[in-house]
């Protein structure tokens, strides 16, 4: 259900006095919330992180310049709206893409990856046009663009590096040296010693280790890996994921920055607090309830309510759930994507169901499909239910 008053309609009497808020200012206010993840991107991923974002913005601007001229839908493309979505897409990509010599599989195979963010921006502009532009469509164009790019170039989107504490903000993300998992998992990023002149560290991302374990595809070196061993030996300190200092998408690498940015959006009245709150709560509960392997071996078995088992216990189950929450981009999705007007339902009661569905779906997809993509797929599924929920949940007036 969409209000489709287009600019080709005759002028309508304006309400006076009006608050003065325009669509441009409305999206402009969103940028204030994104300042915090942007700052974290600059701190942990340096100029390459910011360049990725700039390339996406440039691609989206170029794409929208073309598509704006095509048909009546083109007139519905609004620049502030496009730039906001392009910024979100830029924040979802890893910083190492801003290069012309990305070593994917060693020196033998180098790729020009910088056109990818540029193309992602252009793809976003196309999707915005296809889905109807400003306010239209019930599918988030940013999510669709990201999943398309991710589906085609999945290896390029796996985060690889983070700047060292001595070269944060200024370092080159690709001037990195591999750090062993044992070293990376022993000490937090801010306490870790680095070699003189080392600008960045290449660390295996936690999301990969979690996905391998919970999906049962892990091949443990000793043939057996328990949850406790996973948490102790295969994952970085939790503070690296909460504060920052771990490879990740440039905007979602620091959970704290994402939360502060989301709180800014809440403070400005741009988002509904229920949506991120319920997504995170339901996902946390679902992560505790859904079956997980208590140990990965030749015969891995999954158990519901694993925290009730004596070989797992509350502490390990809750810690694993915490890792799942901060290693995935669920916080970014919950605050910045799931709250977007076109995809979330209008009715308050419907929003609760919508957010609950996203939380449960994210948990399931994270555990059995992939930590890095699950929140976006869950949002895509939930947004398809939004029109139905808008129909089912009529408002309950005061009188």
């Amino acid at each position, binding site marked *: 259900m969409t209000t489709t*008053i287009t600019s080709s309609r005759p002028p309508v009497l304006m*309400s006076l006095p009006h608050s003065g808020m*325009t*669509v441009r200012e409305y999206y402009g206010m969103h940028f204030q919330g994104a300042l915090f993840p942007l700052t974290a991107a600059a701190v942990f991923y340096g100029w390459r992180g910011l360049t990725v974002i700039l390339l996406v913005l440039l691609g989206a601007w170029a794409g929208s310049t073309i598509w704006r001229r095509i048909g009546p839908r083109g007139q519905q493309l609004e620049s502030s709206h496009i730039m906001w979505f392009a910024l979100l897409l830029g924040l979802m990509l890893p910083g190492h893409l801003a290069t012309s010599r990305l070593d994917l599989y060693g020196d033998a195979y180098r790729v020009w990856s910088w056109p990818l963010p540029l193309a992602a921006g252009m793809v976003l502009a196309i999707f915005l046009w296809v889905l109807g*532009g400003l306010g239209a469509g019930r599918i988030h164009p940013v999510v669709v663009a990201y999943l398309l790019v991710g589906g085609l170039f999945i290896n390029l989107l796996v985060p690889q590096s983070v700047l060292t504490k001595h070269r944060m903000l200024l370092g080159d993300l690709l001037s990195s040296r591999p750090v062993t998992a044992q070293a990376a998992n022993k000490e937090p990023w801010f306490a870790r010693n680095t070699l003189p002149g080392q600008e960045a560290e290449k660390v295996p991302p936690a999301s990969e280790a979690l996905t391998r374990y919970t999906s049962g595809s892990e091949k443990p070196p000793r043939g057996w890996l328990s949850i406790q061993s996973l948490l102790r030996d295969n994952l970085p300190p939790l503070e690296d994921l909460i504060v920052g200092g771990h490879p990740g998408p440039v905007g979602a690498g620091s959970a704290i920055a994402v939360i502060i940015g989301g709180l800014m959006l809440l403070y400005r009245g741009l988002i509904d607090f229920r949506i991120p709150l319920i997504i995170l709560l339901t996902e946390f509960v679902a992560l505790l309830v859904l079956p997980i392997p208590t140990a990965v071996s030749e015969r891995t078995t999954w158990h519901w309510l694993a925290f009730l088992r004596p070989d797992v216990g509350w502490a390990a189950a809750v810690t694993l759930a915490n890792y799942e929450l901060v290693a995935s981009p669920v916080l970014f999705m919950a605050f910045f994507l799931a709250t977007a007007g076109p995809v979330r339902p209008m009715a308050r009661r419907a929003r609760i169901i919508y957010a609950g569905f996203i939380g449960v779906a994210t948990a399931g997809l994270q555990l059995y499909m992939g930590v890095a993509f699950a929140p976006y797929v869950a949002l895509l599924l939930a947004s398809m239910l939004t029109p139905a929920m808008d129909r089912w949940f*009529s*408002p309950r007036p*005061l009188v």
Partner: protein
Amino acid sequence: MTKAASDTIAAPPRPSRLQPIKVPARLIVPCHSSDREQPAVIKIPGTVVRAGESLLEESRANTAASRAPVDGRIVGPAVAPIHRGLSMAAVEFEPLDPQAIKTPFQLTSHDLSHVDGMGPAELARRLQSLGIWADRWASPNLLAQLREPHKKPIDTILCNALDEDPAVPLQANVAADQPSAVIAGVRALAAACGAGRAMIALAYGAPAPAWEGLRQELGDSKVRLVPVVNEYPQAHPVLIVHELTGRHLRPGQLPTEQRVLLLDAAAAAAVGNALAANQPLLSAPLAVHDYLRRSTHFFIVPVGTRVRDVLEQMNVQTENVELRAGCPLREIVLTPDCVVSGAELTVAIVPAVSHVNPEPCIRCAWCVEGCPVRIRPASLLDAAQQEDLYMAGQFGLDACIECGICSYVCPSQLPLLGGIRMLRTLQAGSRSARNDVARPS
């Protein structure tokens, strides 16, 4: 004026907060009638009448007896515009001696024993004979509330001294100026209707003289002074009745359907003066809020004064501005020829209307979050575009109080209130068509 009445009147002991204006050369005094098929018969043109005398030859059952606001001569029948889209039969009247009208008198005693057990219908006749009526946003049709057959007895008298626009405290100033008349009015209505509960709702932020005046006059009276947080549109009957009694009044219904008789401070003061001092309604308070110069003026004007005359005395040009009744968010447009009467008492001067191309709805839901009655204005605009009354009903059309907050906050500048009004027009049309079909030929 009777002797008993003159005993209760004394010189104004306190300076008025309402400034009297010069009586204009022409007044258009409306005849408030609920019966359009029986127009009132006015006195012969040229007849000289004294202030307070009736302008009508005979009194009709459903017509408030229009009274001469000052000494003057009847010119003839006229039509009084109340606001754009509403007008009333009226009497054109020429004052004999244009001069400033007197400030409202102050009641000194509240001898209301004669109204005990009078009953609402008899009270309505009494008020009607004195030309008293009130029918505005925050004070629904007073005579209809008293006249309509009551399925349930009135148990609460609620004086709504909240101002529609908290920035323009007209009702609070009336309460500050005439606290004894306001309280007398509330007590008289409670006594006449046999209501066990009487309240005066006053905003926390109302001027101190309003609080002090009402507190002093209340004494040990059973009338309660209730403080209320007044954020627009709290003064609307639906919201104030819900806030203070917990009862669910549907928009458009009279509050008496929920056993509440609701009137504002200006109406209560008029009722108090009428019942305690037999004083007809000759003048009305008026607030003019100039959004261009950011100034507010409070006047006391003769009934039948055109807005144009008030603005001329303020040296305000009516070109390139738009006049709105009440809070400008409601988009009730006034013309300079509209007259001051028992209808809206606040005039807002806003910049002339500009035309904009609204953006498409971005589903920000600010209209939903801001709506005081929790409906879905954006979906109602969809319904208006599709002319779908079923869909409009689903999204809360019947609960809308037309406060205009949705249009005010909308970043896309969509005409949400306009859409709702269009739906209401459609709804009225479809109801009348259904009635025509049902009526036997």
